Each structure stands twice: as C-alpha cells, then as structure tokens.
C-alpha cells in the first residue's frame, strides 16, 4: 500500500512521511500526546503496544477525516473528529482485549484515553482536514511511527535501568542494582527531560553547523 501511494504523488508524500519521523517528531519536537508517553512507558513492551495502538487509531481517523473533509460542516468539525476518533479507539480497545487480556490489564484505562491524545486530534485538524487521502495516510504513518519510536526509546531506557531487562529478558548480570526510581512516575519525567535535552543539543549543533 505504501509503495503504491508513494508512486501516485511521488515527492510530496515521501516528505509527509519522513517529517513525522524526526524533524516534526510528535513527542520530541511538538511535545504532543505526553500523557500516554509518560504513563505506559515503564516497560518496552507496554510502550510498543501503546505506540502501535495509537498509530492505528491515528491512521484510521486520518483516512476517515480526510475522506469526509468536504462533508463535515465547519462549526461541528471538532466534535465530528472526536466522534470518529472515539469510534476507532473503542474498536482498538475491544481488539486488544481479544488478543491479550494481560496486555489489556497492564495498559488499563490508557487505551480508552487514546481518545484525548492531542496528537491525533491535531493531525486531524491540521493535516487530514486539508489534504487528500493518500497524503493523509503518509502523514499518519510518519507521525505514528515517530510516536511509536519515541515511546519505545523512553520505555526501553526505563525498563533497562529500572528493571535490568528488555521486553522481560534480563540484560544485566544478576548483581545489577535496579534503579527503582526509573519505574516510578518520577523516572518518566526525568527520562523524558533528558531525552528532550539531548535532542535540543543535537538540533542546536545542527543549526550552528548550518550557520
């Protein structure tokens, strides 16, 4: 599906795809959708599942919003977007419950809370409502993968330091003293702050190099 879409309008849509990965990364640069980012990133597995679920909802809502963009009256557009998003989140919620009850338990209410993820609504309003379906798909894929990547980074760091494992597999030798704080809420704030710091530093270097 990707390749065909890229073929139809070659240059612009690859750019739509790539911008979400790094330049406009939803988490690191736009700082959108922080609640799930911090809340479920205590293990790499949870983070990955949450990222994929969000990416799925983002993709489906972008497609539908883009398809209906000429039919939705301007005054009620935000309400309509929210309804579209809530529908797909309900689908995702039931699907995850059917696939793995354990996963559903560990993510808890945060699957339902995808509805209020600012990232999805902002993509619907800022992009899908103004662009063709093909470009909206590319945008959603880029943003979704960028979001999942950021979530995974955070989850991997927190699980590695807080638990000494990755995806539940022990990585460090047994006498490794786990940093309990990384699993706790405070660890989420600290890890994200450090990641943002690193990204800021890299971007400043790039700017200096360009100047």
């Amino acid at each position: 599906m990707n390749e065909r879409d890229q073929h139809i309008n070659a240059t612009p849509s690859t750019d739509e795809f790539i911008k979400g990965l790094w330049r406009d990364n939803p988490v690191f640069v736009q700082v959108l959708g922080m609640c799930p980012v911090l809340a479920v990133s205590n293990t790499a597995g949870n983070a990955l599942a949450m990222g994929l679920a969000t990416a799925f909802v983002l993709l489906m809502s972008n497609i539908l919003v883009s398809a209906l963009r000429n039919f939705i009256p301007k005054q009620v557009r935000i309400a309509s977007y929210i309804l579209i998003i809530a529908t797909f989140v309900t689908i995702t919620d039931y699907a995850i419950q059917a696939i793995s009850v354990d996963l559903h338990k560990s993510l808890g209410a945060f699957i339902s809370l995808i509805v209020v993820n600012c990232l999805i609504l902002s993509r619907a309003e800022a992009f899908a409502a103004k662009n063709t379906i093909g470009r909206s798909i590319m945008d959603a894929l880029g943003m979704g993968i960028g979001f999942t990547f950021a979530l995974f980074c955070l989850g991997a760091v927190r699980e590695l330091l807080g638990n000494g494992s990755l995806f539940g597999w022990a990585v460090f030798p047994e006498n490794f003293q786990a940093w309990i704080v990384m699993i706790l809420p405070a660890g989420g704030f600290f890890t994200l702050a450090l990641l943002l710091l690193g990204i800021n530093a890299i971007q400043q270097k790039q700017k200096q190099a360009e100047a």
Partner: protein
Amino acid sequence: MKEESLWYIFINASLINNFVLAYFLGICPFLGVSGKMETATKMGGAVTFVMLISSVCALGIHALLTAINAPFLQLISYIVVIASTVQLVEMFIKKMSPALFRSLGIFLPLITTNCAILGVALFQTSKGYGFVESVVYAMGAGAGFTLALVLIAGLREQLEFAEVPGIVKGTALTLFIAGILSLSFMGFAGLGG
C-alpha cells in the same frame, strides 16, 4: 467493592495518586499554562468544575448504558458530555471575564482533550463509585490537579530569574521540576494506611 471512607477517597485522588504527578493525566495543560501563577489557579478552577459536572453525568450515562446493555457506547458518550460541558464553561467565562478568556486562550477548548477529565469518568466507573463517592473523587482529583499546577507555576516564576543553560530551557526544565515534585509527592503514600 471495598468500603472506603470519603476522606480517604479525597486524599487518595488529590495527594497519594495525584492525577498529574502519579497518573500523568492532564500533562498538556500542565506544561502549557503553568508559566504564570494566576492563569494556573484559574485553569485549575475551570478543570475542577468540568470534572465535577462530567463525573455526575458519567454516572448517569453508565447506569443508562448498563440498562440498555450497550457498554461499547461508553467512551463515545463520555467524550460528548465532556465536550459539551467545556463548551458551556467557555461561553460562561467569555461572558463573565473576557480578560481571563484571553489569557487561557487555546487551552480552554483544549480542556476537552484533557485526559484528567476523561480519566476521572473512566476510573470512577471502573471502581464502581456511587453518587457521593464520585463527587468526592472528582473534587479530590480537581484539587490535586490545581495543586500540582500551582506548585509548578510558582517554581517556574522563580526560575525566570535563574540562569539556566540554553538547551535546558523550556519543556525539559519543566519536566525536571515535575520529576522532583513527583518524587516528593511519593512521600504522601504513607497517608493511605
């Protein structure tokens, strides 16, 4: 359901499991409007108000949906109720205090997508709270949200005068403060008993 005293529900929602610092709900307005003390207080008030109303409505909706056996409509109806309450508050504030309306800006309509509010509705449903418990829970959550917002705003106002390295400025700095606050809020865990 385990019998819980109302006081415990309030302390639990506001301090021990603070919505912002322990559940990470409502981080967007938390990062966005916590720059000034005055805006932070009023934002906290608006959010608490919407929380109370939507919590009571959610209770009714839950009973109705259970009666007609349609739990899959829960999420959609909750979000519609919240969105309309926010619209109401927005019109109210615009009429009563245009200055406040301007200072809250884009963050007022964004209360709709404040996870803390939907969080209150969802958590109270899953905990099976009755009417009084739900109201107390929503009040506790709102108080906790306001407290966290005001604390951060106070710290950030002070930091305006501090010399901070360029790359730390902005979101990263706020997140560091939030992390330290979150650590100190863990001290309240003992209150649970």
